[in-house]
């Protein structure tokens, strides 16, 4: 589904990603772990299409097609979704109106009519129940005054509504208490299928107890220095990032 080849990227002459290779197939969950400043968030931004980052070498293929020249919205229409570490507040637009706009813009890009109101309502009801979101929440301005947990639940709610093929969860666990973590992870797990894939980006192993990955990659200094199964996350938790850093410098 996603194939990253020798990806080099940076911002304002500063190299951040230095040759990343990653292949994600449908039905898989990949975790990307790494210390602060290793390039985790840059990687997610570059996949999603943030323009400030310049790709200096390599390629990103999504379903066999290079997406590097595509705008972020085109990538979204293809089925790429990024859950933000810090979702942006948009006062004056309700959660419901925002998601309706997002869905209908995506349908429009595919040459489809707007989703019928009844279908939209049914879907909103279904997905908000999944994320334990109540009706009042849906009429609030997007992310404005939301707690950390509410913001993340709202991100996963949008993911559930948009049903992307590839979801990248950037530090979704940060700022979550244990209940919110359970709700969010439960939501993600329910959405997993053999047709879609998830990339979980996280600093800590905690989230991976809930969303169990098939593969774990360790990102240090803009490179994937180690890959393995889910047990790698535990090992990292136990030994700390210095362990891989030390190992790679040897």
């Amino acid at each position, binding site marked *: 589904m996603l194939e990253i080849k020798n990806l080099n990227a940076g911002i304002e002459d500063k190299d951040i990603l230095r040759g990343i290779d990653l292949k994600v197939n449908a039905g898989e969950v990949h975790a990307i772990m790494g210390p602060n400043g290793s390039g985790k968030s840059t990687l997610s931004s570059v996949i*999603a*299409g*943030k*323009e400030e980052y310049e790709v200096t070498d390599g390629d990103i293929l999504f379903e066999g097609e290079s997406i590097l020249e595509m*705008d*972020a*919205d085109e*990538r*979204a*229409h293809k089925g*790429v*979704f*990024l859950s*933000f570490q810090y*979702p*942006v507040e*948009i*006062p*004056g*637009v309700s959660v*419901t*109106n*925002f*998601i*309706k*706009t*997002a*869905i*209908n*813009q*995506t349908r429009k*890009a595919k040459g489809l009519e*707007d989703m019928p*109101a009844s279908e939209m309502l049914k879907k909103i009801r279904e997905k908000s129940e999944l994320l334990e979101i109540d009706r009042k929440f849906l009429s609030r*301005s997007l992310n404005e005054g939301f707690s950390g947990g509410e913001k993340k639940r709202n991100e996963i709610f*949008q993911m559930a509504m*948009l049903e992307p093929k590839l979801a990248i969860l950037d530090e979704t666990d940060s700022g979550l208490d244990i209940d919110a973590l359970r709700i969010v992870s439960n939501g993600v797990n329910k959405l997993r299928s053999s047709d879609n894939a998830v990339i979980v980006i996280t600093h800590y192993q905690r989230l991976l107890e809930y969303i169990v990955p098939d593969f774990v990659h360790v990102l240090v200094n803009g490179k994937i220095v180690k890959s393995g199964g889910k047990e790698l996350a535990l090992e990292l938790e136990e030994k700390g990032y210095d362990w891989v850093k030390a190992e790679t410098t040897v």
Partner: protein
Amino acid sequence: MNIESRNMSLKDKLLSSYLTFQENQDFDNSIHDIKDAAIKVFEEKGFPTRKDENWKYTSLNSLVKEDYSLVGRNDDAVEFRDVKKFFLNDIDTYKIVFIDGKYSSYLSETTHDGVDVCLLSAALTKPKYKSVIDKYFDKILKKDSLTSLNTAFAREGAYIYVPKGKAVSKPIQIVHFATGVESNLMLQPRNLVVVEENAEVQIIERHQSLNSNPVFTNSVTEIYAGNHARVDYYKIQNDKEQASLIDNTHIDQQTSSEVAVHTFSFGGKLTRNNLNFYQNGEHNNSILKGVTIIEDKQHVDHNTLVHHKQPNCESHQDYKGIFDDRSTGVFNGKVIVDSIAQKINAYQSNNNILVSDKASINSKPQLEIFADDVRCSHGCTIGQLDEDALFYMKTRGIGEKEGRALLMYAFANNVLESVKIPQLKSRITKLIANKLGVNLGFEV
């Protein structure tokens, strides 16, 4: 006297026609005296020019050089079906409707049932209204030249009197249509709104041209809010491109009253709002909100004054503007806090988005604070749209154009939270969405 002379300046024309106008009116002496005094003020001061500090960024030159008919002919019948769209139709309302300055009984729905919702011409000439007129007509106005000019010619407009303890059962729509039968028409409507102790009213005012002939409206509204009175006033300024409006609104607030004025400026050639609040009692709350969305070479100027004359009061000003093409905006917000007016909270914010490089806004807060225990804040921003928010929306499939429209919509729409008539709120929301030219993909 030849008042049709094309060589005469507008000022001279107004002065000379004043005499003829006065002779034909059946006002009593006290009204004649008020008008005589007012025309003298106008004669002395004339139309404001850019040399006046308050008019530095708004020039009336292009308006006053035109030759206007001062009386509408009103010989074209206006059918309701042709103007229906300019009314709020999905709720029951009283309506006071004028066509080329003359009352249209056919389009109006007035009342005298416990409250008076009717015509100023009746109130100025009939004895039963004399006590209210004597007490309130032309009593709070600062004697600036444009208000004085209106006072001199004032004859028609809305008269709303809500006695102690009454609430008007439904909103009142005041609509001024200009038919364009006259190629150049000057209108001077005058509204008087008296809301006594513990009384309540909601008013929606609109000025609308029906074709593209130039109209110059110099409107004055006096609002008196008694103790604990509540006044909710909405101004819809979405006129055609050759229509210009100077709106002079003067508000006198007594103890514990709350008056809110929302101004929605989406169209017209030149629009100037002189909105003056005088807090004459304690525990007043004054709310001034505005949304301006204009393009082409349109010009909208908000000139506000909140004069805190008593302690323990609040004022809240929130004006937002979106300016495209070569449009220009002005915000001049003056707050005066007298030395006895302690414990005042006065907030003012003016935020603007310039969509085009050629658009401009002049924003100027003026705080004159003579008391020491006050909280005043003011903030002004002029900016572009938030790029992070645009990226966020793109990752959800919302493209650049729609994203920009949605952000502008959200920016402006935020001001609507305090609109208390839901049908009006949704109407304005739709106007804003249409104005921004994009189907936002949801019903509002």
